[in-house]
């Protein structure tokens, strides 16, 4: 049987495996933990598709235009068009797989989300990602039983086999036994966002280390738009991480305010009368960063029916972790790192710059430009997985299972290193950044004792350095990247993709024009 190896068993990985199975191509699904533990299960608010079920005259063209506008001109217009065109059928497919999307009177309903005027987000209360994952995990199991999908949970990517710009396979290590397995043939990376660079500062999971992207980078893969970190406006610190307060809470009527002179100031509604609290995330976070004092999210106006019917998990979570009932008192919120728009640069077919290496989901740079719209991450992972699988399918190789190649002991980890690196990067890459701050962070990276560190740790430093250099090179403000020393958007010079690459041991940063095909709606 022809096979493809997929690194990562979250939504993008499962989606790729299912697409390959549809084409009768086998896949080896490698992941650090089972799919139930993937970050995709944390997605709360929903998935966007112009199904036009709410009588608002929604259309694919509007979904496409909103996504491109939200991405501030940096997303690939042709890729976004394909994504948004596919969305309605994908959501219908999910429903056929039993995803319990919210219905009223037997009909699917959609909710408001940021950066979009139409109700376009299909949802399963406030646990949409979990519901979608459960359905896809069950569907994948069907193909596991047929032998089309083989799972390798508790396995970590140890090395990519790359020669002369071509990927020939992946070496993985069983973290339970140290046994090493070599999977030859094309590789799909679906390894999630780069949370490992910012321990404790993201809403994502600790297991999305960014190590797969760092490995691809070390082998010469181009990375795109690394400076575009999405700070979600409404998060709260809890032990070990940031807790997300879903955008759905504002979609259902939540209002942000600060106290000024003893009175509430609903700043988003004042500054942006049209979309108010539902402006895109980059805009809300930037406004919050410029304010003095605690920002609060007032959800006390939401009805009991909305809490029980649409946001029950969110209420329970806030009660449990923050010790307050959001139906009765405002929630203190602050922006936290939520999503990496940047990552392994792929074309519209999800091919990386290394032949035979594909990437999908949050580890890839595609669809979201300089800022991702809420409800587009599940969609991007689902569709990206399919697109990557379709590209990889033609490269699938005839083989049996993996080849055992002895044992690989775990690499030693330097105590305190992730926090040290994270502190440096977080210091340089805040919501508001500037040249001196970024340069200081680069100097701090230079001062790290690289010689004493493990290989994976050195690769993480290189990834962090590429991120800082990308932010330093983009001397403008756009989307999630706000330079206080270059506050204006400069389309002439910078309506381009930031490309970071390792060439002869040096990190190079260049700017590449956005692919043609967008027309006027691209900006």
């Amino acid at each position, binding site marked *: 049987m022809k096979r493809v190896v997929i690194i990562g068993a979250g939504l993008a990985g499962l989606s790729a495996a299912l697409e390959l199975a549809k084409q009768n191509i086998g896949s080896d699904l490698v992941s650090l*933990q*089972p799919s*139930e*533990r*993937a*970050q995709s*299960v*944390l997605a709360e608010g929903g998935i966007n598709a112009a199904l036009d079920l709410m009588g608002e005259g929604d259309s694919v063209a509007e979904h496409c235009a909103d996504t491109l506008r939200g991405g501030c001109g940096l997303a690939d217009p042709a890729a976004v068009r394909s994504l948004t065109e596919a969305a309605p059928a994908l959501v219908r497919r999910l*429903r*056929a*797989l*039993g*995803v*319990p*999307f*919210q*219905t009223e009177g*037997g009909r699917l309903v959609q909710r408001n989300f940021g950066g979009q005027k139409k109700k376009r987000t299909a949802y*399963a*209360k406030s*646990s949409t990602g*979990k*519901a979608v994952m*459960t*359905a896809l995990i*069950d*569907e994948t*199991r*069907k193909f*596991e*039983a047929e032998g089309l999908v083989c*799972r390798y*949970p*508790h396995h970590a990517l140890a090395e990519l086999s790359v020669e002369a710009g071509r990927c020939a396979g992946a070496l993985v290590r069983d973290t*339970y036994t140290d046994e090493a397995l070599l999977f030859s043939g094309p590789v799909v990376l679906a390894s999630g966002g780069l949370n490992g660079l910012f321990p404790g500062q993201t809403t994502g*999971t*600790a*297991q999305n280390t960014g190590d797969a992207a760092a490995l691809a980078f070390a082998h010469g893969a181009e990375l795109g738009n690394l400076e575009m970190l999405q700070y979600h406006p409404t998060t709260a610190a*809890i*032990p*070990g*991480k940031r*807790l997300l307060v879903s955008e759905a809470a504002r979609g259902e009527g939540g209002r942000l305010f600060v106290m000024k002179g003893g009175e509430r100031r609903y700043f988003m509604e004042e500054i942006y009368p049209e979309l108010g609290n539902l402006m895109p995330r980059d805009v809300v976070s930037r406004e919050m960063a410029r304010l003095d004092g605690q920002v609060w999210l007032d959800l006390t106006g939401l009805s009991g029916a909305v809490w029980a019917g649409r946001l029950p998990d969110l209420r*329970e*979570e806030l009660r*449990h*972790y923050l010790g307050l009932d959001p139906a009765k008192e405002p929630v203190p919120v602050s922006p936290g790192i939520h999503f990496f728009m940047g990552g392994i640069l792929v074309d519209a077919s999800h091919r990386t710059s290394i032949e035979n290496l594909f990437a999908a989901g949050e580890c890839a740079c595609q669809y979201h430009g300089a800022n991702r719209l809420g409800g587009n991450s599940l969609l991007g992972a689902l569709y990206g997985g399919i697109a990557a699988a379709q590209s990889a399918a033609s490269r699938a190789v005839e083989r049996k299972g993996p080849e055992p190649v002895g044992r690989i002991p775990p690499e030693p*980890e330097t*105590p*305190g290193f992730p*926090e040290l690196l994270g502190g440096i990067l977080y210091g340089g890459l805040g919501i508001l950044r500037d040249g001196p701050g970024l340069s200081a962070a680069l100097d701090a990276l230079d001062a790290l004792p690289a010689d004493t560190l493990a290989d994976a740790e050195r690769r993480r430093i290189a990834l962090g350095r590429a991120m800082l250099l990308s932010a330093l090179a983009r001397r403008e403000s756009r989307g999630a990247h706000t330079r206080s020393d270059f506050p204006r958007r400069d389309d002439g010079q910078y309506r381009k993709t930031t490309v970071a690459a390792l060439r002869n041991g040096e990190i190079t940063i260049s700017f590449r024009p956005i692919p043609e095909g967008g027309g006027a709606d691209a900006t």
Partner: protein
Amino acid sequence: MRLEILRRKSREEAPYIECHDYTPAEKSETVATALTRLNAALPDPIRWECSCLQKKCGACAMVVNGSPVLACDARLSDYKNKIRIEPLRKFLVVADLISDRSVLYENLRQLRCWLPAEAEMREGAVEIGYEASRCLQCGCCLEVCPNFDPGGVFAGMAGAVPLSRLLAELPEAERGELSALYRRHVYAGCGKSLACRNVCPAGIDVDGLLVNSNAAAVWKRLLRRKKH
């Protein structure tokens, strides 16, 4: 406070207890926080599995003072001065606090836990499907179940909950095989102790799901038979 951790270098080596005097930095600290902070200073870090840290993924299930919990859900302030931390006991221990829970997935494959036909999302099915979708496959329910043994016929609540989604969402004509599997691997083995209900970290309404599945897979069939 005193943390007693049941450690084990590997499956082959003997377990031993390691004690730490631990001072939480904040009131909100959990067992997960304590393990992270302890590990930052240990030359030989304690192995445990962790992912979301907000009780949505089930990775960090372990036994604390005799009860299965998620480490990210177990607040230190809820315990007295001594906390004993052990791996889940119904599964093979890999090392320290990591148990190999692959039996969960083997059971689901044996139960043919997938939709053999398209779902029919009636209003009731949406509610049941949602509730069942919340299962973390953490294994806490199996830890306390008096009827579950790994390798046995009874799949426990970790098998029953995913099946309840399928039974609720499938058109009646398509339920036959799954109903039979449900009767054999769930209904026949469940002693209704409902110990699982009290430990489920997701707070899943297991009684409600069982009632629905029993109606779909057991009672409807019996009633039909009576009519004939």
